[in-house]
């Protein structure tokens, strides 16, 4: 008969060996209901997966707004100021030329390039910001070890509760997920 301490140790070891539990659902409404139920239960370290963006799903997971708009604005501001400064410096300080009698700081003529560089810079900020915040590119993730997960990019929806969530317990969480009536439940092996 194992002591209570040994039992606890065993369970903890079991929890460490897996990344989490993943449940498969067949529709976006089902996964939304399931995620809300899981959040109400107290689970926080979880993620939901869908082949397209589902409205309400990030909020159900407890996510608020993203930082992307601020990043894009910062990128745009950088491009705008940088672009104007580049032209101003070149055309008034470094190599001034009399072009058609225009004043050296001919700001109307500097507008097109400033505008283009604002947009270019904002676009870079958007894509790089999105990838960095998403921690992509990521060569491998434990979820790809689950064969059913392939369908996440096609027609199935998933909810994954991670093992390092404070309320996670292999048996309890599995029982909870079964109550949500998924198509299947799988353990996600960790690496």
């Amino acid at each position, binding site marked *: 008969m194992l002591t209570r301490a040994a039992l606890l140790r065993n369970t903890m070891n079991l929890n460490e060996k897996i990344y989490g539990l993943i449940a498969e659902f067949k529709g976006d409404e089902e996964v939304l209901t399931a995620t809300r139920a899981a959040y109400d239960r107290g689970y926080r370290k979880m993620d939901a997966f869908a*082949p397209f*963006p589902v409205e309400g799903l990030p909020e159900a997971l407890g996510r608020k707004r993203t930082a992307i708009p601020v990043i894009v604005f910062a990128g745009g501001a950088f491009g705008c100021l940088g672009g104007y400064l580049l032209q101003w410096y070149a055309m008034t300080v470094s190599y001034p030329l009399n072009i058609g009698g225009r004043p050296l700081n001919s700001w109307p003529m500097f507008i*097109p*390039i400033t505008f283009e560089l604002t*947009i270019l810079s904002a676009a870079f900020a*958007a894509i790089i910001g999105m*990838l960095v915040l998403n921690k992509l590119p990521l060569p491998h993730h434990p979820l790809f070890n689950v064969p059913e997960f392939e369908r996440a990019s096609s027609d199935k929806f998933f909810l994954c509760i991670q093992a390092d969530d404070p309320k996670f317990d292999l048996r309890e969480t599995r029982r909870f997920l079964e109550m949500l009536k998924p198509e299947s439940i799988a353990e996600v092996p960790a690496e």
Partner: protein
Amino acid sequence: MTPENEQTILAALDQRTPLGYPARLLAPGENLESVTETIGSIVLKPGLRQPKAWLFAAAGAFSLLMVFFVSIAWLLYRGTGIWGINIPIAWGFAIVNFVWWVGIGHAGTFISAILLLLHQKWRTAINRFTETMTLCAISCAGMFPLLHLGRPWVAFWMAPYPDTMGLWPQFRSPLVWDMFAVGTYFTVSLIFWYCGLIPDLATVRDRATTRGRRLIYGFLALGWRNSAVHWQRHQTAYLLLAGIATPLVLSVHSVVGMDFAVAMVPGWHETIIPPYFVAGAIYSGFAMMLNILLPIRRLYGLHNIITPRHLNNIGNIMLVLGNMVAYSYIIEEFMAWYSGDIFEQSTMADRAFGSYGWIFWALIVINILVPQALWSRRVRLNPVALFFVALSANLGMWVDHFLIIAVSLTHDFTPSTWKMYYPTIWDILTMFGSVGLFLTLIVLFVRFLPLIAMSETREHASKR
């Protein structure tokens, strides 16, 4: 599809709104799985077992690409004297081709960015393809200002890099603005295209059957795992990219138009040119899109996803833009008369009744009169008729650019500078060669990448 099934689907696609327009965005019976299957299977067909038409198209495109390479090689060896340009017509086919190709690229961003901001759901069936068409068109466009330089090998002097000569580019020149505008347009389109493509690449990765394909698509998909949190960031970034690409679309061809508008040449020096060029650009872009998409739709059986409703909407937009171009022609002629400027009046009269007059009247027919057929819903819903109207508009816009750019130069201020412009064989070969480059890139795209936005189409399929 069984015959009864096909009949039901065709009948459903024929459903009309109360006003009589085709209603369905997606054929009934399309679900998440079938959308992925229809589009993904084109990409994942093994090896050489492509449809014969694809192989023929690839062969034709590659041959024209070889013609392009030979023309470029000969140009670099002998210089721009092999073309028909000279003083006073210093800008001939090469610049006409440049403006034409940049114009064609505008449809992609219009459909992707502007229609997204306007909540036009029907854009999903065509946005990926037109974004790609934009990238291919800009690639072709970018070649011409470079080739057109006397010394293409020092083209980088136009960029503001720290050099040993202490020189800067002339930032007050529209030609330098061009470089920034077209360069930004290509880069931003590429970013926007790739951002939208990442989830679809993940789908192809997950359905890949060979290890090689899985690795390549997996590498390109950056490990995307469809997390809802990632989707939230992705959609925000995508929407913001659309928001900034919208003013970009309007500005790029305006800047290209400024190449002419800021010059003194009568026939060029008009304030109508920036908006006129932008409208004409989107017009020719839609025309080119139809010319390539309609055969592809037929070949790969994409009727369930690119439905009559799409054709109807595209036809309507083309009609509006064509009429905006017609308005621009009228304003040009009117302003030339109203201004009382004798040089402007002389150039405009020469355009209609001079040595190139026949081109002007042909232009009116193919660019203005033929597309009026789009008023008829029957024409808009008939792919064959739509194809030929689009072809007419496509060629018409090329002729329009030729008329403004080259023919204005044949008849500027003093009679001593009036001269005819005749293209040489190399002008013509370079032009067809650039079509080869364009088609080659399109053919490769159709083969290797999903040509419809799968994740967005799935959204529609699930919301029904």
